[in-house]
């Protein structure tokens, strides 16, 4: 029976590891300046924990094979428990230290580094079950927000006071996020109702959008293309369908797009 357990565990271990090594299912190529450091962190963790996973499962399998059904004088681990405890503390301790030092840098680049002061600012409003994006328009100033004016029925998703607030009149409100490539972007995330989330796998960014908070999120996309923004925070019955698109355009294409939007 020990041999069956051993063989089965070896098979389970190898089959489990194969798709990881073969990258059968894997994160899509990253398109952000901070993405590669996240990927590097993921790879390093994968190697470190992969060694721990495979070795510990195989040791378990091997010991069960060797000592299963045995009838003899029991033996103790040579050297006793102290080297085992020390080994565990040192190996995991080193792993923790290295991961924390490298990982904190990756995190800091995303969240602790200040945004570029010339970043293109986009205001994001999340609601059940849609995202809306607001650009400041030709005047470069965002109009004020008034929750009591928010109305899906009239398409006033941000609660702009068009009547009294001049700055809000040229604000551009659209249903998908269009940005220029290689340009720092600063999003300000708001939610009008539930907690939602802004997740773009290619950007390696995921940020909750919390009602009552204004959460800044900055990034720079490095590759033009059409990507999906999905909500990852359970926000109600239509959660699964809550998404928008991220269009990363070349600077001339973006300028033309912005001009076209302002002209509407």
């Amino acid at each position, binding site marked *: 029976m020990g041999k069956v357990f051993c063989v089965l565990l070896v098979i389970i271990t190898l089959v489990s590891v194969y798709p990881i090594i073969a990258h059968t299912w894997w994160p899509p190529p990253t398109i952000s300046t901070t993405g590669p450091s996240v990927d590097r962190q993921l790879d390093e963790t994968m190697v470190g924990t992969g060694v721990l996973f495979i070795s510990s499962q195989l040791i378990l399998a091997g010991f069960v094979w060797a000592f299963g059904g045995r009838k003899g004088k029991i*033996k103790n681990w040579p050297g006793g428990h102290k080297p085992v405890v020390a080994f565990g503390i040192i190996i995991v301790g080193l792993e923790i230290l290295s991961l924390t030092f490298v990982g904190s840098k990756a995190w800091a680049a995303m969240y602790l580094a200040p945004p570029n002061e010339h970043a293109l600012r986009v205001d994001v409003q999340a609601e059940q079950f849609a995202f809306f994006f607001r650009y400041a328009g030709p005047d470069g100033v965002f109009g004020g927000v008034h929750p009591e004016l928010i109305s899906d029925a009239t398409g006033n998703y941000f609660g702009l006071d068009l009547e009294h607030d001049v700055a809000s009149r040229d604000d551009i409100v659209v249903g998908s996020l269009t940005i220029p490539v290689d340009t720092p972007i600063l999003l300000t995330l708001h939610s009008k109702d539930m907690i939602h*989330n802004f997740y773009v796998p290619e950007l390696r960014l995921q940020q909750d959008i919390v009602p009552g908070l204004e959460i800044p999120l900055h990034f720079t996309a490095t590759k033009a293309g059409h990507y999906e923004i999905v909500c990852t925070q359970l926000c109600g019955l239509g*959660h699964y369908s809550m998404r928008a698109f991220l269009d990363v355009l070349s600077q001339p294409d973006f300028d033309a797009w912005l001009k076209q939007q302002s002209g509407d």
Partner: protein
Amino acid sequence: MSDTSAQPEVHHHGPPQAFIRKYVFSLDHKVIGLQYYGLALVAVFIGMVLSWLFRIHLGWANMAIPGLQLLSPNGAPGGVMTPEYYLSLLTMHGTIMVFFVLTNAPFAGFGNYFLPIQIGAEDMAFPRFNMMSFWTTFVAFLVLMAAFFVHDGPPISGWTAYATLSSVGKAAGPGEALGQDLWIVSIGFFCIGQLLGSLNFIATTLDLRTKGMKLARMPLSTWAWFITACIGLLAFADLLPGAILLLLDRTAGTSFFSPAGLVVGDVVQPHSGGSPLLWQHLFWFFGHPEVYIAIIPAFGIVAHILPAFMRKPMLGGMRVMIGCMTAAAFLSYMVWGHHMFVSGMNPFSAITFSVPTLIITIPFTVATLIFLGSIYGANLRFTSASLFSLGFISVFISGGISGFFLAQPSIDVYVHATYFVVAHFHFVMAVAAIFGIFAGSYFWMPKMVGRMMNETLGKLHFWLTFIGVYCIFMPMHYLGLAGNVRRYAAFTDNYMIPLIPVHKFITIAALLTGAAQLIFLYNLFHTRFWGPIAPENPWEATSLEWSTPSPPPFDNFGGKHPVVYQDPYEYGVEGPQDYVMQTAPGKVTAT
């Protein structure tokens, strides 16, 4: 083999004769333990069937499930599950499993039955509290089940019930009316039951140990229940007020969790000044320790069972294991923020929470290495109980490994709220704890019902379950790496559509693995009524529960208090047999 002349007499009243006092409102910790176990058994099958239903929906979104419309005409018209009903079932699955299975069975169930016996007591310190704790838990379960039968169905906010989805009421969506209220009331009752139970466990362990039962001679399972009770006393004391505040937000117009300017369905909500993050802090300050409430008893149970089948004590004796469990329990209160890396809290705090989260892997790694090192040189006997214990080690390794990823904010920012997380917590707390429960069931059922379980069926159950859980949960890691978001009722995003075949595979594996649990159920019922009579000590084990008849008499030791002379795991010793009972006087010589 125990020295009966040294045993002090117990002054006790006779067992109750009336049916109600004997089987229903019983004060006997053994009956209460069985009641908890029975409740967990009912709950686990309901929770499993729910997972079957929503797994089928995830693989085949438009498929009609015959009969589902009878459970909820609104939630499943014509048997086809609506997205909101998917979320309802998901919420109920999580709540039932975490609270009524993973907390009830390994801690309250086995703990109630065996903690007093393992320390040589005739009952818990507060038998009436004990009865109240079970019946409060039972009421909590009924209140939760009632949510299935209210108009809008059960809540859709998940077992984490994040505000503001859970705090603004009916406007948030179906199930967020009466269903969510029932959920909160249920959790409140559950907390009260657990607080009473935890107090009882602590008082019993500290005050009722028999002569010679020093703390250092308590079995590892008793240590685990004791440590868990200490965690529970703090954790449920945090969730209970949290639940009350949430209920007040919904019913009394307070604004603990709902901020100003909230607009739901074009209507400005009458709230001001609340914070949705406050709920997350309160919830996870309970929620992370709750994970350890599920897993530490399983750790203790496995560490208690394995020596009996290895015929040797754990490597390093008991101290290392106790140290690991205590360290994990202590650290469990410093790591709750790792559930909130992307929540919008100050990004500096992510690093603060990341470090203790990574440090908490040290006691668990050491414990795993101790398990592995202990098997070296053993005379390993294969039974259903030992197989599930070995399986526990394997699934705990698999679940623990993914913790390294999630503990790092820079990786969590990619895999947070994906199936990677689902894989992690199912392996490390759900499957590992369930393996602990199964190991405990096969090990202790002879003592609890006085009959031996069928080993052939038990082993078949193990092989199918072991393969099954890997088929279900290992692929979820791959889904998460590919960015597959959890809690989605259907996968309509372009990049998720190619992942649906993986979901189908998981669903089929879940159905088959679930069906394999019927073997256990059959074995359990067959054993209860027709199993061969169990001897007093079928596994040649050493702790006190094996020095009393199977099942034990009303006062556990037949009018005497046992006297303890030995450490709990004296296996592999010299003498006529390779073990020495805790009640055996004299000096033990190791081989």
